[in-house]
Every structure is written in C-alpha cells, then in structure tokens.
C-alpha cells in the first residue's frame, strides 16, 4: 500500500480510519465492498505494526472483528456475514453522521462571543428550605457509588497496611550485596533471599542483582541450591 503516509495518530479511533478508507474510494458506505475494506484496514494496521508503532487496543479490537467478518464470509452460507457487514455499515453511517454534525456545529460558534454577567451580588437568601427523610441521603449515596459496577471507595483503614509497610529500596540492596561480597567472595543465591524479612526486600534484592549483572559487577553460577553469586573483579572475566 503506497499511501500509508498517515500515522495512526491522525485517526481518533478505528471508525475514523475506516471512514477515511471509504472516503478514498469515493463510494458510499452502503456500496463499498466490505471485504476490500477489511483488507485495507488490516493492511494498514499491519503496516503500523511493522513500523513498530504502538497500536491502541481499539484498533486491534476492530481488526479482530473485521477478521471475523472476513472469516464468516468465506463460508458457503453468507447469512451471518451479511448481517455483520450490515451492522458495520450501520455503525459507520452513524459515525459519519456524527462527524458531519460535529462539522456543522464547529462552523456555527459565533454564539461563543455572547458575554453574560455574573448574577447580581444582592445575596438573596437561597438557603434550602425543604425537609427530607434521612433515608434519602442514604439512597443518594448508594446511587452515587453506582449499583454493582462502581464500588464505594475503600475505607481509609484498608490503606494502612500498605502505608505502614516499609518499602525497601533497590539501592540499599545493591550496597548490601557489595558489602557482603567484599567480605565473603561468594554468596549462596538462595541464602541471600532466605534472610529477607519482607516481600518488598526480596523484590529489591532481585532487582539489585539484575542491575549488577547488567553492569557486569557480579555473575551467577551453578544451578539449584548450589547457585552462587560471584563478584566480578575484572571485566574480562565475563564471557
């Protein structure tokens, strides 16, 4: 495809890209051969992957849907494919309408120039005069939190255990490993972790090791329980 000069960022989402592809054919949404559209879309998205662009999940999701449409259209009976294509055309038509309306709206923004004024400061007494049952406030709270989907916020106490836990830094474990290696030449891999007092410390220790290996300051030798950590004295030792 020679004209992949657009980056995906130019498209707000998969629907946008599909409309663009349709627009290039100068055919209406209802006339364009759906399989051709599918192929073009997939080619486009595939090309983006080749160029190592990060694809938003929306684009991948649409690709999966299009592949499914393509697959079912290969079946001897086309019913499902026709139905799915029709649905896609319908959605594209809706989206296309939406874009047209947005375009119209964006051309009639003169009204943004009407200046109004803040309400007069005679401070009328607007205090609320109605009386409600206490249960109404309860119901509003349940409603605010949404039934089912959105959970109420966790109470503060549930964060305490997280906050009170000491976070062990990777740097501190690096200096620990150095100090130990300076004295002992070699360390038992497992033993280093056995001495950890928390999960955070274990993670930090492991990250410290990875860092040091990458910097060629230590290496790991052996397997199983006998695995050892050795200090690298001279860089040439590392193979």
């Amino acid at each position, binding site marked *: 495809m020679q004209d992949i000069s657009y980056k995906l960022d130019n498209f*707000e*989402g*998969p*629907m*946008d890209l599909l409309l663009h592809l349709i627009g290039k054919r100068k055919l*209406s*949404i*209802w*006339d364009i051969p759906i399989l051709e559209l599918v192929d073009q879309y997939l080619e486009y998205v595939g090309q983006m992957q080749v160029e190592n662009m990060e694809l938003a999940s*929306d684009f991948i999701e*649409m690709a999966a849907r299009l592949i499914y449409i393509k697959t079912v259209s290969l079946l001897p009976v086309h019913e499902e494919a026709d139905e799915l294509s029709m649905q896609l*055309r*319908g*959605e594209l*038509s*809706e*989206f296309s*309408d*939406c*874009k*047209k*309306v*947005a*375009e*119209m*709206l*964006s051309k*009639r*923004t*003169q*009204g*943004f*120039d*009407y*200046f*109004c*004024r*803040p*309400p*007069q400061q*005679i401070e009328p007494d607007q205090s609320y005069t109605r009386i409600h049952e206490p249960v109404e406030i309860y119901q509003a709270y349940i*409603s605010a939190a*949404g*039934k*089912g*989907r*959105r959970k109420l916020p966790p109470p503060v106490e549930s964060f305490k255990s997280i906050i009170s836990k000491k976070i062990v830094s990777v740097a501190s474990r690096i200096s620990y490993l150095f100090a130990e290696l300076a004295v002992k030449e070699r360390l038992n891999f497992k033993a280093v972790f056995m001495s950890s007092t928390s999960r955070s410390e274990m993670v930090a220790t492991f990250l410290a090791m990875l860092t040091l290996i990458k910097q060629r300051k230590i290496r790991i030798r052996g397997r199983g329980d006998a695995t050892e950590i050795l200090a690298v004295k001279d860089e040439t030792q590392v193979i």
Partner: protein
Amino acid sequence: MMGIDDMRSAAEAILFACGDAIETERIAQALGVDSPTAEKVLKSLSDKLDENGSGLCVLKLGNMHQLCARTQYAEVIRDVLETKKNTPLSPAAFEVLAVVAYNQPVTKAFIEQIRGVDCSGVLATLSQRGLIQEMGRLDLPGRPLIYGTTPEFLRCFCLSSLADLPELPDRQKGEDSGDVQLSFSSLVAEETD
C-alpha cells in the same frame, strides 16, 4: 398590576440581576402574569433593545431567557476584561457534543459506541465548560449517568431551542437503514437485552 412598559423594564432588571438564563415561568410568576404574557413582554423587550441600538440583547434559550452583550462587542469586552478568546473545542469535543445534542439524554456508553473510542476526558471538559450537564441516571444495571445539553449550549450555538438544531445530513440510504436511525430508544432496547 403593572403596565406593559413597566413589566418590560422589570423583566429587563430581573434578567440583568439573574445573570444566568432563567425560566420564563419564573419571570411570569414575579410579574404576576401567565407565561404567554411574560413571553410577550420579553419579546417586546428584545425588540425594544434592538430598536434602541442597545449593546445588550435578549436570547431565548429553550424555556429560558438570558440577557447578553451583543457579540459584536466581544472584542472590546475581552480587551477590558483581559480575557483570551475562548479556546475553540477540539474536533473530538464537537463530535461528542453532536451525539449528545441529537440524542439526549444519552449515556457515556452510547457515545462511545458511536465513536468507537473512550470519551471520559471530553465529557469532563464539556461539562466544565457548561455545555452539557448530568440529567440523572438510567435505571439499568450499573445505573449509568445520562447527559444532556445546557442553555449555554443553545446560546453558544445560536439556537433558540433544540428544535432549531440543523437537520441531520441526508444519508445516501442503503435499502434498509431502518436500524441505523440515531435514536436513544434503540440503545435502551439494546442494553436491556
């Protein structure tokens, strides 16, 4: 009871003091007349302001009215208030606004279904700018919020009511486009499936 001239002046004073758009009904109550009469008074005020070449004008926004400075003075006003020109909305914001305007009240899910992308950020911006507002919740699982446009929306797009929205673009229709009608009822039907 006040004469028409006095009512007109009173209506002007009320609109001025309120600042925001105000229900015609509330003006009628304050003037001690019925809504159609209040409507007439406001129309006469609007005509009078035009006739006198006033710097102000009356806008009808749905069942509300608002007193505003005429747009031709926007530039000098900005000068004095030292405000910048309103940043125009992003194309995405116009799209979301379009869906809300033509299908209200709508859920976020409906908007996202049409546009195929997340729109939480855009919705927040639009409600902060006073163009859309929450209209309650839908009685469906998850109790989703529903959104509609505000009187500000009408003002900003020079509409006197939602019925004034430009017609939807003509679709080059396929044989049966019955099901692609942009309508909220179809969404509800779908969600309750």
